[in-house]
């Protein structure tokens, strides 16, 4: 250790080193390019996830009709569509975009570093992720078809091809998910270590922007919860292909074990993607309210509290799934208690608005839209966490509507918040505000019209994962069917509005007005780079930023400017 002094030269050499095209764009180690790779891969996968949603919503609204661009939907294809929709949206859209893309792009910039601590590990993480996406997409085209046993993959259905009838599809699905976990474990270690060790001189723990905390805490949650499921995935893979009997009750295994392994990860996973999305709000709201984040320390404690509590609640997904009923009481208590830190966090974000000077820009609208939509997702969770009510709601569309009121704000509204806010930093140009507002209102309104009707059908008894309700007399009523059609039509509207976003993104990327380095007049370090978008290394190596104050110093009394950048000495 005492001889490892050569790094000083290494750091300098690299800044003089000209990069080839391949090094810069195909196999980059620069955190900003890896972040963009994750971003666009995730958005590309979202197209597939959205297409699957379109297919099965059309089938539900107009049973057995031929769906345009797809054809008639068989029960097998329907099951595959819902399974792949869930898997893709969580593992290949929410995770890569919220954690990996924003984590890669933002962490070094916001802590005043030139790159991640381990750039090549970072590149390896993206490459594994890319392979996992390829394996997943390939699994849709193998003989037997794509895996259709729901994204929870409960055995014995998932463990035995004689039950699932997708011998290759289920194994490839499992391998893709396991590879994706490996990619995010590597990425997560990188994020945590970079934020712990790589901070700019002078940056104390309470000078760290909230989004960095959120992504790191999310990475720690992921790391601490995914292990049992990695082990479980290996066991399930052996069950599928070697004929072992971990989860097969005919031969001494236990299917309940998989459910626990899955949800021990699956519930913290919700918070893994939630925290970065709330972090976006914590960054964006102070900027456009021109006001300090309300009670920084308390926001941080509620985040940590949420993270820790999220490990104690997982079995509320299994209340009626065959666990011992006595355990359900414990998990009801812990589940309802998680409302305490989460409610406090939302209150604090709302309190940040008090006394502000609020500018309704597009990123601000998205951040406020997140709070509005997530509130509905949050309060409806109480119904499902309360074991007695969950007896009726379990596996109905009420659950579907509830978790879409959390996941849609997280994965899409959160992403739009961050994407529109940091777009000038990513591409050096501004997005079109008018198109942005049309996209915002179109998306928010149609989104509510998709999922509010689904709360109603859930109350009416609609079970999930049913490809045609005509087989159930109580559910084949015109009232329920009209609500299903309403939801489907709203989905089509929602999809149509996304084309505005895609157009706005690509047009602004090349032809938008030049933004300048700090268009929002924000205080955090990413807005202080000399070049915009920042060049390799972000800052000149001999002039890295030093931090003198917290990240949210807006409207400080006695100062002419209403913002006070973190790196300004006075």
């Amino acid at each position: 250790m005492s001889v490892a002094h050569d790094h000083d030269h290494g750091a300098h050499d690299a800044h003089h080193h000209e990069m080839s095209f391949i090094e810069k764009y195909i196999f980059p180690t620069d955190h900003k390019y890896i972040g963009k790779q994750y971003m666009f891969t995730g958005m590309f996968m979202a197209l597939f996830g959205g297409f699957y949603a379109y297919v099965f919503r059309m089938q539900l609204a107009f049973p057995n009709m031929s769906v345009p661009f797809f054809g008639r939907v068989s029960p097998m294809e329907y099951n595959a569509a819902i399974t792949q929709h869930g898997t893709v949206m969580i593992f290949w859209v929410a995770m890569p975009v919220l954690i990996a893309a924003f984590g890669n792009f933002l962490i070094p910039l916001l802590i005043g570093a030139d790159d991640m601590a381990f750039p090549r590990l970072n590149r390896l993480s993206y490459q594994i992720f890319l392979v996992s996406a390829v394996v997943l997409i390939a699994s849709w085209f193998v003989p037997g078809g794509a895996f259709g046993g729901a994204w929870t993959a409960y055995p014995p259905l998932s463990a035995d091809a004689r039950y699932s009838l997708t011998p290759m599809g289920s194994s490839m699905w499992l391998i893709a998910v396991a590879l994706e976990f490996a990619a995010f474990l590597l990425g997560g270690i990188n994020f945590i270590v970079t934020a712990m060790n790589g901070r700019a001189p002078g940056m104390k723990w309470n000078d760290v922007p909230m989004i960095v905390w959120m992504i790191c805490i999310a990475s720690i949650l992921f790391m601490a919860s995914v292990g049992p499921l990695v082990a479980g995935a290996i066991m399930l893979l052996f069950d599928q292909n070697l004929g072992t009997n971990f989860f097969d009750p005919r031969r001494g295994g236990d299917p309940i074990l998989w459910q626990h392994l899955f949800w021990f990860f699956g519930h913290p996973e919700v918070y893994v993607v939630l925290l970065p999305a709330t972090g976006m709000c914590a960054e964006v709201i102070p900027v456009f309210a021109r006001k300090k984040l309300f009670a920084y320390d308390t926001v941080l404690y509620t985040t940590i509290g949420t993270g820790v509590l999220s490990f104690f609640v997982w079995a509320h997904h299994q209340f009626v799934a065959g666990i011992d009923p006595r355990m359900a009481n414990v998990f009801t208590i812990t589940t309802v208690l998680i409302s305490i830190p989460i409610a406090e966090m939302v209150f604090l974000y709302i309190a940040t608005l008090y006394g502000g000077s609020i500018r309704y820009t597009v990123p601000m609208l998205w951040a406020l839209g997140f709070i509005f939509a997530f509130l509905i997702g949050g309060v409806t969770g109480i119904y499902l966490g309360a074991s007695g009510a969950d007896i009726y709601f379990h596996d109905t569309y009420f659950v579907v509507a509830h978790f879409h009121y959390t996941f849609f704000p997280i994965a899409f509204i959160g992403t739009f918040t961050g994407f529109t806010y940091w777009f000038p930093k990513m591409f050096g140009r501004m997005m079109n505000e008018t198109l942005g507002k049309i996209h915002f209102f179109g998306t928010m309104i149609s989104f509510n019209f998709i999922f509010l009707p689904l709360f109603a059908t859930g109350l009416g008894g609609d079970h999930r994962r049913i490809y045609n309700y005509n087989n159930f007399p109580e559910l084949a009523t015109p009232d329920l069917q009209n609500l299903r059609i309403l939801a489907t039509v709203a989905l089509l509207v929602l999809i149509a509005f996304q084309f505005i976003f895609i157009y706005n993104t690509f047009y602004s990327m090349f032809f938008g007005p030049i933004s300048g380095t700090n268009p929002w007049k924000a205080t955090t370090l990413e807005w202080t780079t000399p070049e915009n978008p920042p060049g390799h290394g972000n800052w000149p190596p001999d002039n890295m930023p030093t931090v003198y104050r917290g990240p949210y110093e807006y409207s400080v009394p006695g100062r002419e400017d209403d913002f006070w950048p973190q790196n300004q000495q006075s």
Partner: protein
Amino acid sequence: MNLFQPALSTFASDVDNLVMMITAIVGFWYLATNVMFFWLLWRYRAQEGVKALYVTGHEPELLRWITYPHYLIIFMDLFVIVGAIKVWYNVKQNLPEPQEVVRVVGQQWAWSFQHPGADGILDTADDIKTVDGLHVPVNKVVHAKLESRDVLHNFSIPVFRLKQDIVPGRVITAWFEATQAGVYDLQCAEMCGIGHGLMAGRIYVESDEDHLAWITANTPK
């Protein structure tokens, strides 16, 4: 428009009342939060010459606005927890003495039912086996022994507010007491493969005389 399924078991209205109570509590919070939210959005919109306040949020007189509602949330959480556990205990843990025991077997993708027959005892010669139709007497405590031949299924009767997964290799006992005669849906509510959407059954809740007549007519010779 009548969306909601009628409540037709002894505990169905308990579940519904719990849902109502939760609706009252979270509805209050939802409305209160939104009123505050939109009022702040309107009141503190950017205005010419008005600078934002500079507060950290740790000032006691401001933080009060967060902590007091917060204590109230903790207090109301207790109601939700107690209410949920009471209903749960009644439906899932407590097991009243059975007046009839039936066996429910799920398999891909059909139900089969074994009724105790005239002697009221399962696994005797006069058992009645049916496919996709479960016959039970009204106003009697019925135990259902849930078994599966292959994968996970779920024994769900929405009008009874009853739902229980069926796990292969296990025998799980569910109970209900129907309060009104009629024919209702019985559904599989756990993903069980390609035919999951076809796995429908019917439950025939019959008055004592009708039930007796059905037993007499169907007892195997």
